[in-house]
């Protein structure tokens, strides 16, 4: 079960905290939550994935769909603090090429901007 928590960060960014298992069955709930976030047209969206215990391709696809939508609207997106296992899956699925990965103590991030065309 995926737990989704949406909050506002200190720098005005929207923080979406995801915890639990992000699989096929969680996609619908995630899409609903992110539709609200998109409605706010945030400049910057940080998806905190540190609490994810499972992530598969359906979750990744959902993450990428949301990222693309937010970027299209002019915002920036970063994934924050993935666990080792999550980071491995993100790497395997080449998500690291598309979305910036940031750590907790470095909120500004070092990753390059993703290219919208490559988000599927």
């Amino acid at each position: 079960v995926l737990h989704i928590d949406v909050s506002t960060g200190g720098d005005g960014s929207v923080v979406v905290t995801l915890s639990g298992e992000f699989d096929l069955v969680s996609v619908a709930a995630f899409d609903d939550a992110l539709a609200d976030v998109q409605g706010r047209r945030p400049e910057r969206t940080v998806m905190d994935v540190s609490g994810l215990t499972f992530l598969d391709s359906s979750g990744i696809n959902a993450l990428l769909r949301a990222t693309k939508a937010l970027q299209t609207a002019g915002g920036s997106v970063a994934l924050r603090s993935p666990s080792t296992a999550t980071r491995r899956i993100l790497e395997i699925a080449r998500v690291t090429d598309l979305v910036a990965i940031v750590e907790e103590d470095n909120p500004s991030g070092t990753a390059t901007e993703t290219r919208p065309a490559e988000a599927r």
Partner: protein
Amino acid sequence: VTNGDPAEPLRENGAGLEAVFGSGASSFRRRLAAGALVGIAVLVVLGSFLAWRQYEDGKQQAVREMDARVVLAAAVFDTYFAGRISTLEAVAAAPSVVEMNTARMAQYMKRVQGDPKHPLFTQGIGWIDLSGHPRVTDKSPTGTTVDVSDRLYFKRPIETGKPFISGGLVSRVAKNRIMTISVPTRDVNGKISGVVSGSLKLTPAKKPSARSIELGFEGVSILDRSGQQLTDPSFSVPANRALLPKLRHGDGAMADTKGLEGDSGRVVAFANSKLPGWTIVLDRSRSEVFAAARRSFVIEMISIIAAALVAAGLVAWAISRSRRELAAERDQMRRWDELAQSLGEASAASEVSAALGSALTTAFPGADVIVALHDDERGGFRVWTYGGGERGPLDRRAPGVTEVARLVFSSGSPLRLTDPAVLESLLAPLAGRIERSPGELFTVPMRSQVGVTIGSSTLLLPSDTRLGGAEEALVVAHTEYAARALGRARRSEREHDVAVALQRSLLPAALPPVDGIEVAARYNAGADDLEVGGDWYGLIRRPDGIVHLTVGDVAGRGVTAAVLMGQLRYAFRALAYELIEPGEIARRLSRLVPEGGMATATFLALDPYTGELSYASAGHPPSMLLDSLSGEVTLLDQGAAPPLGWTGLEGLEEGRLTLHSGMTLLAYTDGLVERRGFGIDEGIDDIAELLGRRSQLGAEQMADEILETIAAPVSASDDIALLIIQLLDVPSVMNVEVPADPSILRSLRARINAWLERRGVDELKRLDAILAVSEACNNAIEHAYADGDGMIRLTIEHAAGALRIVVEDAGRWREGTPDPTRGRGLMIMRETMDAIDVVSSEAGTRVELELRLVETPAANEPTSTTG
């Protein structure tokens, strides 16, 4: 389950009849008693009247008799005085008297007096001259100087020339009480010359003489003309002077009047004696006179009363005897009633036999009763023995018993043996077990409705006993009654067989094998004569690998219980495929139990891959969990709810725990732990102790051990069902089929993880495997079954240092969907697995994956997808 009680209305009817019959008999008895008492009273009154009449007659008779006595006495006196007068006339005519020769006269008179000790005239004889002086007496020739000229006995004969008898006088010289008889004397010329007188002393007898008693004169009173009582020493005149004039006139008797002395209640009889002028009177009290009559009256009355008492006693005896007979009859009716009732309730041949045996033993205490019945199934006989008095029943297996019971089979009609020689030879095999010479052997065949001999009942009576005709009829009637009941019992036994067959058919013949567990099941039917119970057990392995287990017990017995048991068991099968949670299965089953039905059951869901167990109990004794390593037994007492068919199962929460290899589960019905005289807890303790002691046994051996050591000694009267599940090593292959539904993926991942963890696979490899399975399933769900339900088959084999995973679906790829092999999921699978092969066909898609757990030098090139 009740199958109706045919004996019930019969008993009510019997009681009613008895009441009616009883009250009729008692009112009849009352009428009889009243009639008899009235009859006796009438006889007593009549008899008393007759006796009283006889008494009255007797009294009159007594009065007449007294009268006759008195008349006789008067005649005697007349005769006596006539004789004395004649004697004196003879003296007066003597020559010496005529010649007035005093000397010779004196000698003559002395001669007349005879024996001086007993003189004829006790006061003497004398001659008195005309001057009134006695000139000569028998004692003195010269006479006396006493002047008796004033005496009537002197004057009257001189005046009348006729004899005279005086009344009572007192003599002048001696002052004796006397009476005097006198006759005139004449000289030679015929002139009166004087008087010859003879005097008699009147000496009242001190007691009545024997003669007077003989003649009935005792107590007689004699009155002279002046009324003096000559029988009284003082010559007194009776006090009751008024009586005297009556007495003077003639003879007669007066009863119940005043007597001479004025006493009332007297009987007075009187007669006048003419010569002496006396009145003879018998004056006696009524009681004395009527004594004889009264005595006979009293005797008669006593006889009548005695006869009445005897008659009343006879009536009372007859009534009490009839009451006893009635009581005996009622007793007999009650026994019939009891026999009818127990026969009505009998549902097996042995119960019919017991009812007959009990009835005959009660009717003939001390007799041996042998009941033999043809055994339809096995052939031969079933023999039961009863009675035997204090010694107790014969051993039914003793040699000779069956032979005795068979005696009557060939004859087909009752047989009565009393000849000691015949009995002795016949009963020789039983010598030592029975008394040497029984009084009688009476044996009756038991015949079916079509007249076939199907059994016998035999009575062996003590030596001093013989059966009467009525008693023989009773034995015959009882036996016929039992024969009819036997027909019913046979039908009921067949029903039992049907129910047993039905139940057996409802229980699984064999349980399906399940990887990772060993299962043993037992069903032990209760005692022969009982109806079949509703115990069941069941095991379902769901396609997803979860194993549902149940053991239950429908309340009641017989076909009805077996049918409900079948319904519940089939419903369990259906629900087990649909539901995972045992508590939900219990709730749904509970709704299927019909009104009035009830069942207890325990439900367990075991995942053989993960070892996870959840369980619920609906009013059922707790299952037991044995840890074979420690020998410790745990009762699974969580998840308890009321029995199926009750309310209150809604809040049921399952008990949960995780098992490991080497653990054993035991589920059972209460027949295993319930035994007479002990609580269910003791039974559970016994089983737990046995499990702990024999924890190393396999499931099958353990099931046998439990039934042999626990159930057998209890002579299990109730059915027993039990199920034993042992967890073996963790299965090396996981083989499950799950619905193509995203919601099941999470639990599937968790199960795979737990299984692989138990298999000893490290965490990173577990994560990779789970991720790959997840991707394969995602593909199937998203692409193959996007428009409907379908199943996904997953097989993971852990062997030879590798995991081989196969995910199959039966769906078809939708037109226009992207090639899954190009997707991110496939990318992930390729990256995490050492080998991947995806085969799509009309039949579905099969994804094969391999993950090496031990690094091998060989390069792992992903294979290309074929289409």
